[in-house]
């Protein structure tokens, strides 16, 4: 106790006089003000403005007209929103299963392999391409009688007559595949960093005890990777909930709104149909969904870690 109190006393005696403390506080406010202002002006104000707009009718000109909850009523009674919700859920699940799963597989198979980094490099290259460019490239691959259909036909495999981008929900599945092509490499890189940061002792001890392959992964590597897995999956959930660019470029959410995600629906209502109020309502809804999904996932993961 004595040892603990000594620094406190020392700290107390080092404090400046009350006037100096006041000046110090003002100084602190002054230094933090720019950052606080940036956050307030660029994040909080737009969010509050968007929330306000969601209760109005507004086409971008003049003054917004107060509507109350009408936009929310219209949004939830629109069958297109249900399709959009379903597709967004597919994107969330698909993004976790495919790019995260594939990234993990690539990482586990290559992290201690000789020349493993050279093997991982091709998977990383697509990450350098923008989502729009990925969409354009895959549009050519997946169009009717495009490169994929021709390749399947040449190899005598089934599916060459599939309408990859025209039939729902097939179009959503293949677009998730295109996104996985881009994102798997970076997920693999993150998992490799996680695997390389695992202490060697428990892994070698497990190997000495005869564990290898799936058993080693399930009992040693996977539990020790968990902090990183939480981050990767958390980021993937947020990214997949706001999926926009690749869908917009490849199908514009069509045909007949069949491949829309919530972010695409929000964009269409706001900027295509110039229903800013309705678009804002979808935006608020998407924000709430993203927050709930992220907080629920992270809380569960963190509480499980504490329990462990």
């Amino acid at each position, binding site marked *: 106790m004595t040892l603990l109190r000594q620094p406190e006393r020392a700290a107390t005696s080092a404090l400046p006089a009350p006037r100096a403390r006041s000046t110090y506080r003002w100084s602190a406010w*002054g230094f933090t003000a720019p950052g606080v*202002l940036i956050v307030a002006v660029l994040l909080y104000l737009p969010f509050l403005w968007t929330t306000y707009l969601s209760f109005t009718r507004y086409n*971008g000109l003049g003054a917004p007209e107060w509507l109350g909850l009408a936009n929310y009523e219209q949004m939830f009674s629109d069958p297109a929103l249900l399709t959009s919700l379903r597709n967004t859920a597919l994107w969330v699940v698909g993004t976790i299963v495919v790019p995260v799963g594939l990234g993990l597989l690539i990482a586990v198979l290559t992290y201690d392999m000789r020349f493993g980094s050279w093997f991982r490099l091709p998977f990383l290259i697509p990450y350098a391409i923008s989502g729009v460019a990925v969409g354009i490239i895959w549009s050519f691959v997946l169009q009717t009688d495009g490169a994929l259909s021709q390749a399947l036909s040449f190899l005598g495999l089934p599916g060459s007559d599939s309408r990859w981008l025209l039939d729902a929900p097939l179009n959503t599945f293949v677009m998730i595949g295109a996104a996985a092509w881009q994102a798997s490499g970076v997920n693999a890189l993150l998992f490799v960093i996680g695997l390389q940061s695992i202490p060697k002792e428990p892994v070698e001890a497990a190997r000495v005890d005869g564990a290898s392959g799936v058993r080693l992964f399930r009992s040693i590597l996977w539990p020790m990777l968990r902090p990183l897995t939480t981050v990767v999956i958390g980021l993937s959930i947020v990214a997949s909930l706001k999926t926009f660019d690749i869908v917009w470029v490849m199908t514009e959410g*069509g*045909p*007949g*709104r069949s491949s829309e995600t919530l972010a695409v629906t929000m964009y269409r209502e706001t900027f295509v149909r110039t229903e800013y109020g309705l678009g804002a309502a979808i935006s608020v809804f998407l924000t709430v969904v993203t927050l709930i999904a992220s907080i629920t996932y992270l809380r569960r993961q963190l509480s499980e870690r504490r329990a462990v």
Partner: protein
Amino acid sequence: MKLTYKNTRRKSVIASLAAGALLLAACGGDDDDGDTAGGGEPAGESGGEQVAESGTINFYTDKAAWEPQFDEVSAASEEAVGFDLNFSGYSDANAYSAFIKQAFRTDEKPSLFTWHTGQPLKELVDEGLVANTSDLWADALGNGDLPADLEQYYTVDGEQYCVPLLVAYWVMYYSTDIFEQYNLTPPQTWDELIQIADTLAADGIPAFWHTNVLFSFVWFQTLLAGTDPDLYQRLSTGEASYTDPGVVEVMEMWGDMIDKGYFSAPDMADDPQTILKNGDVAMLNFGTFFTGQLNSIDLVSGEDYDFFIIPAVNPDLGATPLIFETGPLCVAEEANDRAEAMNYLDWWLTADAQTTWANSRGDVSFNPNAEVQDERLAALGVEASTDSYQLIERYFEATPTSILFTALDAFGQFVTDPGDPMPILETIQAEADAHWGSQ
């Protein structure tokens, strides 16, 4: 000066507050000096304001791909009236529309900008955002630089706003190679057109291009206007229903044509001009601005491609319906250089300006006095003004925005999976009821 601890802290407080103030100033912007647009040599006065005799006018458009063509016009205008254009092009029409609307809320109103006729123009006029051009119209109608037919599309509540940026007629472009290969000639009647489509379909070649995104309306307008132009026009004013038997019949005809293999897959990723060049389809139903796009990939009019006016579906119509579109060039009412921009519009309407503009793009001109170099386009311009043709406004401009985008989705779905058209027509009509009910 002795530097004390107290002084240092006071300075740090002042410095940090100054940093905050600077940030605020940077965010706030400042346009008290009213600089930029229209900057140039002041000369005359207009309404108490000095009007420059030369300078640069800020110009905004969603036709970013036409920058070289606008550069040509800019050079011509600089020589003729002393003003050139500071070009800002957007390639995304939605982003552009949002930008223009937001620009009206700032001190930098768009001096010259392109827009759309129909409801989008009326929205700007209702808010008092665009300059009245009635005087320009009166002068140009008087000296023949503008045809009287166009005036209605620029008239809101009896006054004119903006002037035409362009007009385009929707015709059928075709690959001369494919036509020669199958010994085909441009059709004079709808039946002949269908015979051509049958010939090509029998050999597995799609006769027509179509798409399930933005331009999904094109064949609907062609078939409906070609069958019953009166119904088409009543549909655009809310006097007719999308579930009208006449509309249903047209949709069934469209579905039948798709089922017979007349159309390409609606998800082709290539540009339409590349599709024609590659011979992926034989014909494309397009606006005459397509000539410029074809020329840009080194295709030659009359050699590699040609076009014909689409015959009416209904042979009993007195005049053949010819779809046309016109897009406006506008001046913001409160632009810093409103007077200079209005003078620019005055020059824009002249035959010299329009000769440069039409030929730089390879398109027809709205000005009958302009000299269009492409013989086929020049002939079309003359032909279109005769009694043999009835000009019909393009569906995109003729239809109110909310109905339009519901219809585009519905047509996109229909061209992908043609079947019973009634469910999608009911969806469009529900949107139409909501729109017209709120007017």
